[in-house]
C-alpha cells in the first residue's frame, strides 16, 4: 500500500478513476450523483435521442427546476400560467425528458423542489467522498460536505447521462487555511468575498481549493456551503471542506442519507477522507478570520470588493476599471457606505439557506424596510421555506415590508422575470455582480445576508454592526 500522504481531493479523485489519466488521454472519472435542471439539459437529451442512447444510471440522476421558474405563489400553486412563455417551455421539456428517460424529477409543485445546490445536500443526496456534477458552475457548493463537485457544460451533461462518466484532466490543489475567530457581524460570505478579492477572479483557475483550519471548522454547514459555492468566482474548478462531526450531524436522518448499518459503514469511510498530515498542495495561502470585516462589492465582478467601511479604489489609466465604475455609477475614492439602495435580494444558492434567512431576520425583527426600497426574500428550497415559516421568519419579513416568495433562483439571474430595473442599485446575497446579471443596466452589490438586511432597513449601504 502506498504511504504517500494524500489530500482529500486526491482520495476522492483516485476512488473514482475508471481509468487513470495518461499523457495522451484524460482520466475517465465515474460520477456518483448527477443533478440536472431545466436550462442546461434540453440539448443533452436531444443528443441522447439522436444517438438512440439511454440514461445509463437513472437512479444516480435527479432533476429539479429552479432557474427560470416563477416565485410568485399564484404562478407556482394557483394554476396561473408561468408568465414567461419560453420558461414555461423549458419546464415542460424537462418534464417530458425526465418521464421519457426515467429520471426522478422534483417538479414545480413538489414540496422537495428548490435550487439544485440547496436540495442536493438538504435531501442527503450529496455525501462526503462522492463525485457530484451538474450543468451549473455553482455545483462547487456541494464540496462543503467533502464531495468533489464541479460544474459542467451541456455536452458533458450528455456524457454523464449516457455513460455516467466524464473525461477530465486532474486539477491542481490549492489550500486556503483559515484560522482565528470571526468577529461579530462577519461570516462565511465576508470570508469568501475577501478571498476572491485577494486571489482574484482567475486566481483559482485549474485548481481545486480545499478550505481548511479552525476558522472553517467553526462554520456550520450552511456557512461552509456559502464558502464553497463561490469557489467558482475565484476561477476554481471546485471547493472542498473535509467532513467532520458537523457534517455527519447535518447528514444524519436526511431522506437519502444512509441508515442503520449502512450509516456506520459510511461513517467509517467518511472519517478516512480528510487530508493526511504532511500531504502537499500545489499552492497555499493563510487567512486570519479575526481580521475580516463585512465585505461589499463595488464593481462588475466579484473580485472588485472592499470592506464596507472602505473607499472605492483609484486606478488611474485603467480603462477597464473606469468602464466598470461608470457602469456602476461610482467614482474612484468615494466611500461606499451611505450610498442609496433601491432593491435588496436575500436568496440564491449562496445565501438562500435557513441560517441565512435567520441572519437577515435577526436584523429586520421589529424594524421596517426603508420606504422606496423593494426587498425580496426568496428561500432556496421549499423545505427551507417551510422551516423558516415554522420559526415565524416569514412573519418577520412580511411585517418589515419585504416580499416572501416561493423558492428558486429568482433575482440571482433574473431569468424568471424577477429583475432589477436599469440603473437601480441592488444589494444582493447572490454571487455574481456582472453587468446586466440581475437585469439590463442593473447595478449589483454583493454582500452577506446581515449586510443586505441592514441596507434594507436604512435604504443605504450600511455596516450591519451599526444595527446589531
Amino acid at each position, binding site marked *: 500500500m502506498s504511504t504517500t500522504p494524500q489530500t482529500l481531493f486526491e482520495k476522492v479523485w483516485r476512488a473514482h478513476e*475508471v*481509468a487513470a489519466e495518461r*499523457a*495522451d*488521454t*484524460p482520466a*475517465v472519472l*465515474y460520477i456518483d450523483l448527477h443533478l440536472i435542471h431545466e*436550462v*442546461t439539459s*434540453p*440539448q443533452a437529451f*436531444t*443528443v441522447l435521442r439522436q444517438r438512440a*442512447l439511454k440514461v445509463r*444510471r437513472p437512479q*444516480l440522476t435527479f432533476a429539479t427546476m429552479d*432557474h*427560470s421558474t416563477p416565485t410568485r405563489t399564484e404562478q407556482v400553486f394557483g394554476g396561473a400560467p408561468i408568465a*414567461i412563455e*419560453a*420558461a414555461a*417551455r*423549458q419546464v415542460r*421539456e424537462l418534464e417530458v425528458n425526465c418521464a421519457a428517460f426515467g429520471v426522478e424529477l422534483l417538479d414545480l409543485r413538489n414540496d422537495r423542489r428548490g435550487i439544485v445546490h440547496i436540495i442536493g445536500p438538504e435531501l442527503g443526496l450529496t455525501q462526503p467522498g462522492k463525485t457530484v456534477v451538474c450543468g*451549473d*458552475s455553482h*455545483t462547487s457548493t456541494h464540496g462543503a460536505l467533502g464531495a468533489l463537485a464541479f*460544474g*459542467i*457544460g*451541456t*455536452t*458533458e451533461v*450528455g*456524457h454523464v447521462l*449516457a*455513460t*455516467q*462518466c*466524464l*473525461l477530465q*484532466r486532474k486539477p491542481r490543489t490549492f489550500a486556503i487555511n483559515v484560522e482565528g475567530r470571526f468577529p461579530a457581524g462577519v461570516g462565511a460570505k465576508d470570508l469568501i468575498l475577501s478571498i476572491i478579492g485577494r486571489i482574484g*477572479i*482567475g486566481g483559482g*483557475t*485549474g485548481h481545486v481549493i480545499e478550505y481548511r483550519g479552525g476558522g472553517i471548522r467553526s462554520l456550520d454547514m450552511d456557512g461552509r456551503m456559502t464558502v464553497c459555492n463561490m469557489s467558482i468566482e475565484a*476561477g476554481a*474548478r471546485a471547493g472542498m471542506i473535509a467532513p467532520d462531526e458537523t457534517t455527519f450531524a447535518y447528514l444524519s436522518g436526511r431522506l437519502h442519507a444512509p441508515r442503520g448499518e449502512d450509516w456506520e459503514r459510511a461513517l467509517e469511510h467518511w472519517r478516512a477522507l480528510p487530508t493526511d498530515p504532511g500531504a502537499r498542495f500545489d499552492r497555499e495561502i493563510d487567512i486570519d478570520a479575526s481580521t475580516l470585516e463585512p465585505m461589499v462589492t463595488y464593481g462588475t*465582478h466579484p473580485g472588485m470588493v472592499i470592506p464596507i467601511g472602505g473607499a472605492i479604489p483609484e486606478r488611474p489609466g485603467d480603462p*477597464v476599471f473606469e468602464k466598470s465604475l461608470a457602469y456602476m455609477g461610482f467614482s474612484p475614492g468615494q466611500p461606499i457606505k451611505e450610498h442609496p439602495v433601491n432593491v435588496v435580494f436575500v436568496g440564491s444558492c449562496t445565501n438562500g439557506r435557513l441560517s441565512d434567512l435567520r441572519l437577515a431576520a435577526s436584523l429586520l425583527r421589529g424594524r421596517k424596510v426603508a420606504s422606496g426600497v423593494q426587498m425580496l426574500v426568496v428561500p432556496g428550497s421549499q423545505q427551507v421555506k417551510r422551516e423558516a415559516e415554522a420559526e415565524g421568519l416569514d412573519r418577520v419579513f412580511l411585517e418589515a415590508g419585504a416580499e416572501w416568495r416561493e423558492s428558486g433562483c429568482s433575482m440571482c*439571474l*433574473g*431569468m424568471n422575470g424577477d429583475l432589477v430595473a436599469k440603473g437601480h442599485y441592488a444589494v444582493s446575497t447572490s454571487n*455574481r455582480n*456582472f*453587468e*446586466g*446579471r440581475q437585469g*439590463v443596466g442593473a447595478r449589483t452589490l454583493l454582500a452577506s445576508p446581515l449586510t443586505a438586511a441592514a441596507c434594507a432597513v436604512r435604504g443605504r449601504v450600511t455596516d450591519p454592526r451599526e444595527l446589531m
Partner: protein
Amino acid sequence: MEPIRTLRSRTAVLPVSDVDTDQIIPARFLTTTTREGLGKHLFADWRYGPDGIPRPDFALNRAAAEGCAILVAGNNFGCGSSREHAPWALTDYGFRAVVSTQIADIFRSNSLKNGLVPVIVDPDTHRWLLEHPGAEVSIDLETATLRHPAGEAHFPLEPFARYCLINGVDELGFLLGRETEIAAYEGRAGIQ
C-alpha cells in the same frame, strides 16, 4: 464535429478584460432548447442599444470585424457560468477561435467540445494582437502555434483535445467505447 487543422482569418479585437459568460450571452437568451441561432444574441447588451439598433462603436459592429473567425479579447476570458450557450453563441456568430491571456476552465472545456479553439498566449503576443485589429493570423493545431505578421507563439493544447479537434472525434463516442472498463468499475463499486 468537423475536423480542424488550421484556421486562417483576420482578427476581431474586443479589448475588454474579464469578459464573463453573462456578457457573452445574457441569461434571458438561455430559454432556448436548441443549440442553434444564438449568434444574434452574442454580446447582446454591448452590441445593441436599448432600441435594438446595433451600436456603431462596439468592436464587432465595425465593418472591419465582419467575417472574422478569430476573436482577440482582453485578459481572462469566459469566467462565470457553465452555460455552453456561450461557445454556441460564438460559433453560431462565426468565431472558430478565442485568444486571451487566460481562459476560464469551464468555458475552455465547453469551447473544445464545440470546435471553438481556446488560445492562451503570452502577454507580449497578446499586446501585439490587441494593438493590431484585423491582422491576418493563422492557428495551427498540429503544432499548437499562432502565427501573426510580426511573430508566432505556442499555446497550450491538451493532447487529447488536440486529437479530437484535428480528427473531428467527439468525446461521447470515445467514452461509449470504454464500456468494458465502466462496467468493471461499477461492478467493483457495487453500482447496478
